[in-house]
């Protein structure tokens, strides 16, 4: 780890001032540090200055507003989401998305904002390889050890998005509130997270002088019911092989709103819009769920070692859709 300067701020506006003083990218915010510190230690980022935003208490809250929408401060920890009885009752999908994320120690430190901004876990990116995502020319994942790779092709990089929380947020039509020197803007999580491109080799769209302050979830999304299912290669402390977030609203026996979003199948959370379209307006049955699950994986182009993710995604989708409608049982 290179030596760096470390300063602490008490509020978002102080952080933005400090970021503005930094020379575009040389200054970094640090929240829980659970992703940033490993990146620093491995030399993958080398900022000259870190701004600790943890003392900014105003950014740490879970608030249901009168209109039924939810606001989550960027510094809220995954553990706080996990422990919230209100969320367990009103928004089980969100709570479920974090309970198997990382480990209890990490969840106690990991923040919602940091979770959306965590970098790829691809081992070519993290390891001593000059991969495309780090500025090189080759995605080693394509022809290499790709059992954890994306099955949907979104560009030059084949790394799979690691977050469990992000697909849940996309399924809930969440937006991100961002503050910068020019004021605030709001953008859907589904757009905030975007595949890396030649010019922007990161999985999110945030300028170096901006920060995330809040996540908002609209009331109409909360009105439904949902689940998050995560397949892992051990029973704790593992990134998803595939995760599936489903949130379904049923009115008068028919599906009124449906969202199905995967983690770990693409560069960013993958929304299965074709599957959603099949569900809406229909009575949800096991057969329909299976059809929707088939539609969800259409277009997948697996590599040599990640073909298993296709049936896995299909099965998790089927189960998640049924479970969101309380139709899932052991005998399905």
């Amino acid at each position, binding site marked *: *780890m290179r030596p760096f300067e470390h300063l602490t701020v008490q509020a978002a506006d102080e952080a933005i001032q400090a970021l503005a003083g930094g020379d575009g990218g040389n200054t970094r915010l640090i929240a829980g540090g659970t992703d940033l510190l490993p990146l620093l230690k491995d030399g993958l980022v080398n900022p000259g200055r870190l701004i600790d935003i943890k003392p900014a208490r105003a950014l740490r809250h879970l608030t249901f507003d009168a209109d039924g929408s939810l606001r989550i401060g960027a510094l809220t920890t995954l553990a706080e989401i996990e422990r919230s009885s209100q969320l367990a009752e009103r928004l089980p999908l969100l709570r479920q998305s974090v309970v198997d994320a990382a480990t209890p120690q990490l969840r106690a430190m990991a923040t919602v904002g940091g979770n959306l901004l965590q970098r790829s876990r691809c081992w070519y990116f993290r390891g001593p390889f000059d991969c495309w995502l780090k500025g090189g020319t080759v995605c080693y994942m394509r022809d290499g*050890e790709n059992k954890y790779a994306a099955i949907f092709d979104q560009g030059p990089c084949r790394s799979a998005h690691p977050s469990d929380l992000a697909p849940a947020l996309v399924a809930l039509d969440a937006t991100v509130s961002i503050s910068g020197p020019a004021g605030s803007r709001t953008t859907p999580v589904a757009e905030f997270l975007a595949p890396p491109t030649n010019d922007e080799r990161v999985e999110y769209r945030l300028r170096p002088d901006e920060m995330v302050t809040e996540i908002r979830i609209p009331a109409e999304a909360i009105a439904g019911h949902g689940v998050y299912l995560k397949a892992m290669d*051990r029973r704790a402390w593992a990134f998803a092989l595939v995760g599936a977030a489903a949130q379904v609203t049923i009115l008068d026996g028919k599906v009124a709103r449906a969202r199905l979003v995967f983690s770990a199948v693409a560069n960013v959370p993958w929304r299965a819009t074709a599957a959603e379209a099949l569900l809406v307006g229909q009575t949800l049955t096991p057969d329909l769920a299976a059809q929707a699950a088939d539609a969800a994986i259409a277009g997948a182009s697996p590599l040599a070692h*990640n073909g298993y993710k296709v049936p*896995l995604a299909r099965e998790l989708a089927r189960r998640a859709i049924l479970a969101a409608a309380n139709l899932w*049982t052991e*005998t399905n």
Partner: protein
Amino acid sequence: MPIRIVTTHLEFEGQVEEVRVVLEGEEPPAWGPDTPFQVVGKPTARVDARERVTGAAEYSYDVQLPGMLTAAGLRSPHPHARISRLDASSALAVPGVRAVYSHLNAGDFINPSSGKPVFGNELLYHGDLVALVVAETPEQAREATRAIDVAYEPLPFVTAPDAALAANAPMVNTAVPSNTISDEYPQVYQRGDVEAALAQAEVTIETRMETPAALHNSLETHGGAASWDGSRLTVWSSTQGVFGARQQAAAALGLPMTAVQVITQYMGGGFGSKLGVHRSGLLAAYASRQLGLPVKYMLDRTEENLDAGNRPPSVQAYRLGAAKDGTLAALDLAVIHNVGANGLWSSPVALPAKELYQCANVRTTDRAARTNLGTLAAFRAPGVVEGIAGLEVAIDALATELGMDSLELRRKNFAERYQLLDRPYARKMLLDCYRIGAERIGWETRDAEERRYPGGRSGHLRRGIGMASQLWGGDGGPPAQAIAKLLPDGTAVIITGTQDIGTGTRTVLAQIAAEELGYPLERVRVELGETAHGVFSPMSGGSMTLASVGPAVRMAAVEARKELTEVIGQLAEAPADALDIRNATVFNRETGAEMGGVSTYLEQLGGHEITAKGMRGPNAEDVTVRTFGAQFAEVEVDIGTGAVRVVRIVAVHDCGRIINPLTYSSQIEGGIIQGLGFALTEQRIVDERLGMVMNPNLGDYKAPTIRDIPQIDIVLLNEPNVVANTLGVLGAGEPPIIPTPGAIANAVGHALGKTVTRLPLTPDRVLDMLSTTTERS
């Protein structure tokens, strides 16, 4: 005491060697099945539990000496390369950096175990050592490794063993003209005529088992701290053998053995990979001498997982022939070992095939390839874990082919005698293990509909039950010595040269001594992990610690107690053989009178300490001593996601007398958990195109977590093996890991109606198995 020099035999991980030992005095007669005990056999918390859980225990990792410097290694980012340029000047300019060592300035430092320089300019695998930085803080040292300017000339490499053995393969090491270990390979063992027996057999099957490279991932990494006092060297080494470490360090530094002291008070796991002082310990000593300050070099996790050894990958191909009634007629096994860049031996993967079942026609062929990967190291029952998995899966496949219950098939082919030397086993309780385990797991209902399909036939869950057998040596042997001292204050000190590698050695040795002395456990202190006492004990490996050192401690305690009663008898004017000592209090056996605490007598001796020696006697000849056992696993497979959950494991092992049921159980549990990792989650992953290890860390190399651990039922047989040694104990370190992967593989095979051919059974593999069509009924 009369001195004798005796020749005896010692088995270590499948190899029998002849050893000559000096013995003084006579061992006491063996504890019989009816010997009454006060301390032995009672569940006893570790004597050092408090230190361990509060962090007071000082591991090598924790050693902090005034002025101590820290080292960090720069590791090869190539599978095979020559260093064409190395410039350390920028690294030397990093604040706090004291030295950078490489082949340029330390090329003459030789590792005595390989005879080769510690720093070469040809790097043989990803993770091979390029250079070592020594700095004031660990952070400075690590950072400075990045500042070393190195140019590498990549060389052709090979990582797959069959490719390495093919004609025209790239040479793993340009200085060695062949990729095999030696001209002793292929190694062939033969009895009878396998081909003829296979040709005539009524039923034949072929199976295959590929096992992965597993990394030890000891919680404490390899390494040590070194400090010089003039020409005397002290090394705090994370080692399983302080005496071996001393020998290695003395040879490497050109010192007489008496000038080196090795200390290992607490040790955070080794599992066979820490039998010596390791290159890292030698480097700490080397750098410390150069710099005149204490130096610590503990590997970081990445270095550890690239350069501290592995359970090497195996590919096993079995051909079995049998009569319709199940009688095994032929067993052919071909193994390919991948021993890594500097491997000089191969593991006894074929041992179970040679020995476990009665079979007149057996052939095993071992081919071994060196490759451009990290070198193998012994890993808890090396070879036998893999070999049992391969053989026991083959036996299950044969049972299916025969339409026979697989346990019945095993009983049918039970080997009464040790077939390799045609001599008896001292004892073989394998049939008891089968019976008890089968009863506990409910073997007879394993095919019941409601058991196999917990969610009904249309549901996604399948349960299966499988088992595997275990065999292992573990009878230990000489030389192993102990000294017992009875201090005036009524406490006792037991001194041995063994080390407690985390198994509870301190505790069980204290129990043995307390038992024989008639002292309460708290009054016995065990000193170990230091060469300075000169009380030799073997390394803690091969499941031989208790069976070697325990009898020596017992003899020392017996002799000390004899002297004690002698002394008290003279002081109290009572016949020595009428005296009994219980709870460190003296009683007259005849009158029942209490005669006061031992210290009331010992204090009268003007500071004299009663000192007695004990040593492990020779092993029995003309008989093979083994531990046998069996594990039964119940698993639940989610056929939609490929997830395997182990529900329960029943473990029945004959490890002789159980000195401490608590430490015994923790060995069994630990072995099972490690075996479960091998079966389900753990594997080193190599990008074969690049020759690079993808997961040299604890995040991507997946050891089981607490949630992966099933219900574990341990059956304590607790039958003393009186042929083995005077305690009747056998090792329990390795036995419990041996059958776990095979039992789980067979349980998954049973659940899915398929034969497992590869470990670990990760969800992707299970989903692949489910999508292939070869069913078995």
